[in-house]
């Protein structure tokens, strides 16, 4: 029990709170038992009501219904990071807000302090920016298609032989058209990654297979630079990542290493254990190395240590910025170790697929109902566990019908992710069980299947709110799940979704 202090001290603190919060431009409220006990004028203005009218109201009444579950999860996670949701004004209209929630003690009681900010303008700017980038990149690609196409045909002699000087000039023009294309692709890519618009398809990956195939792709380039590759695999555990994006990071680091190695040099790629729970990839070159001051700037946009040199080597100055964004989006870290004259080692770490059992957590004492994942494939279940945990869900795993029935008898989940092909029966058997069992009739089910339904599954069970086809994108899965939990079922979506 926290000391409440004397009445005088309390008045003093209340007065201080009112003074500070009245000067703030953000909405500030204090919640006791999820109901508002204090609010500043900015909060009332934001939501179009009088301060007196908000005291005693539940927080939920100021959040758009479809985001209430998400706010509840955010509160349960104790995260103090800003969370973007939609707010609901007194007149029922909704708008984009950012909410920061902090656990505090107010008047001796455990309470929640919330700061709410209107971010409609920021969201609109983000939308306009990405629309602009998308349009510009398309508009640039169209003329570049003609330029690149014409130059390519001329250079290759497809329209007759050119005099040597004209051929050389055509080659220069074609190479620079290629560079412009790479630059546009990189800008578009970086914009998408940073706006969180790429859909990561997280799966269990074999690191040595990724390195081998990337090395094979780059062998032609390495021969051109007279550089050889060496591989050193010291860890064979699967990692959790998006295959295409991990290959993109590896391609970037390996091609940089080749470009900056001396003739006859060796690029060494190693895979080994990293920080606890992570797999570490390292790419070591025998280049001239990078000073400590320069290392800090390496991963920034358009950062080229020796601009002329980099240009000659065909870089766009965005590769490392893209790699860093991609690594971070997959929950990893990236860095460099280097000394001038000794060469450089670029490394990145990505999360390992956790061992089975790690996500089979949270006993009956846990208040938040979790998601029941019914999936017999270990790798798929582990990846689902990672995705769901990152999004703040607690997860219970069942790898058969029998285990799923037992899990449902123990507690009612907020939603079920259901693989239809189970070792001891079909997912439909579990759907029947859910419908017939009192207390479970309302649990929403998202089906994960390798095949499309051969019929309209809603006629089979109205519990199926969505049918996702594997492989599905992480975002698609989380959207389906949050819709399911919020009770939103769009019949058009419920028919079929695949990523």
């Amino acid at each position, binding site marked *: 029990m926290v000391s409440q202090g004397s009445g005088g001290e309390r008045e003093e603190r209340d007065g201080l709170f009112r003074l500070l919060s009245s000067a703030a431009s953000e909405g500030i409220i204090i919640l006791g038992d999820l109901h508002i006990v204090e609010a500043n004028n900015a909060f009332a203005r934001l939501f179009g009501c009088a301060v007196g009218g908000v005291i005693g109201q539940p927080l939920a009444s100021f959040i758009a219904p479809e985001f209430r579950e998400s706010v509840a999860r955010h509160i349960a996670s104790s995260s103090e990071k800003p969370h973007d949701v939609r707010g609901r004004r007194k007149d029922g209209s909704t708008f984009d807000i950012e909410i920061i929630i902090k656990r505090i003690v107010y008047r001796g009681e455990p309470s929640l302090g919330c700061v709410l900010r209107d971010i409609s303008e920021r969201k609109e700017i983000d939308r306009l920016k990405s629309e602009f980038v*998308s349009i510009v990149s*398309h508009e640039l*690609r*169209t003329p*570049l*298609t*003609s*330029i*690149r*196409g*014409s130059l*390519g*045909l001329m250079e*290759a002699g*497809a*329209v007759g032989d050119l005099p040597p000087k004209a051929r050389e000039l055509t080659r220069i023009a074609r190479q620079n*058209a290629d560079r412009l*294309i790479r630059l546009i*692709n990189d800008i*578009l890519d970086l914009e*998408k990654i940073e706006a969180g618009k*790429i*859909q990561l398809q997280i799966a269990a990956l074999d690191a040595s297979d990724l390195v081998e195939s990337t090395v094979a792709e780059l062998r032609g380039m390495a021969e051109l630079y007279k550089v050889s590759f060496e591989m050193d695999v010291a860890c064979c555990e699967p990692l959790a990542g998006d295959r295409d994006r991990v290959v993109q990071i590896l391609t970037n680091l390996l091609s940089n290493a080749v470009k900056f190695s001396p003739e006859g040099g060796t690029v060494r790629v190693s895979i080994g254990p990293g920080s606890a729970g992570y797999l570490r990839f390292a790419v070591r070159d025998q280049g001239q190395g990078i000073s400590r001051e320069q290392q800090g700037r390496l991963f920034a946009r358009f950062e080229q240590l020796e601009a002329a040199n980099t240009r000659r080597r065909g870089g766009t100055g965005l590769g490392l910025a893209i790699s860093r964004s991609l690594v971070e989006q997959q929950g990893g870290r990236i860095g460099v170790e280097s000394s001038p004259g000794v060469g450089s080692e670029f490394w990145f770490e990505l999360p390992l697929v956790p061992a089975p059992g790690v996500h089979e957590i949270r006993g009956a004492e846990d208040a938040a109902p979790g998601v029941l994942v019914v999936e017999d494939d270990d790798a798929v279940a582990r990846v689902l566990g990672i995705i769901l945990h990152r999004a703040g869900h607690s997860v219970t795993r069942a790898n058969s019908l029998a285990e799923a029935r037992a899990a449902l008898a123990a507690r009612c989940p907020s939603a079920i992710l259901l693989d239809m092909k189970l070792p001891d029966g079909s997912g439909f058997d579990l759907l029947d069980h859910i419908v017939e069992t009192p207390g479970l009739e309302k649990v929403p089910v998202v089906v994960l299947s390798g095949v499309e339904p051969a019929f309209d599954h809603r006629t089979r069970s109205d519990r199926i709110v969505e049918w996702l086809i594997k492989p599905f994108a992480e975002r698609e899965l989380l959207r389906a799940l949050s819709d399911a939990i919020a009770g939103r079922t769009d019949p058009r979506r419920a028919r079929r979704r*695949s*990523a």
Partner: protein
Amino acid sequence: MRLLCADDEEDIRTILQLALSLDPELEVELVDSGEAALLRARAGRFDAILLDGMMPGLDGYETCRRLKADPATASVPVVFLTAKTQRSEVEQALTLGAVACLVKPFDPMTLAADLRAALGR
């Protein structure tokens, strides 16, 4: 192999004609819109159709949907040639029944081979 190509940009049609003529087994017919592609596809016998994604009037996606809805053209494989490379757009094309998406800007020297690879021929 008889190939029907639709692209609204005249310059790109010129390059397509030259690039695809490097493959002596390709017989190429070019049109400048989705509407023209539908008309020609119904009238002629083509082994494949190459569609630009963004065209005024009927865009490539709608053209593809109509080609797939018409029993006379439904079985002709469609490949997209698009300047947009977002995964969602590729998915949209594939969902509509296209067999592949090739990207612009393309390398004219490998376009015919890339197209054959996409068609599995």
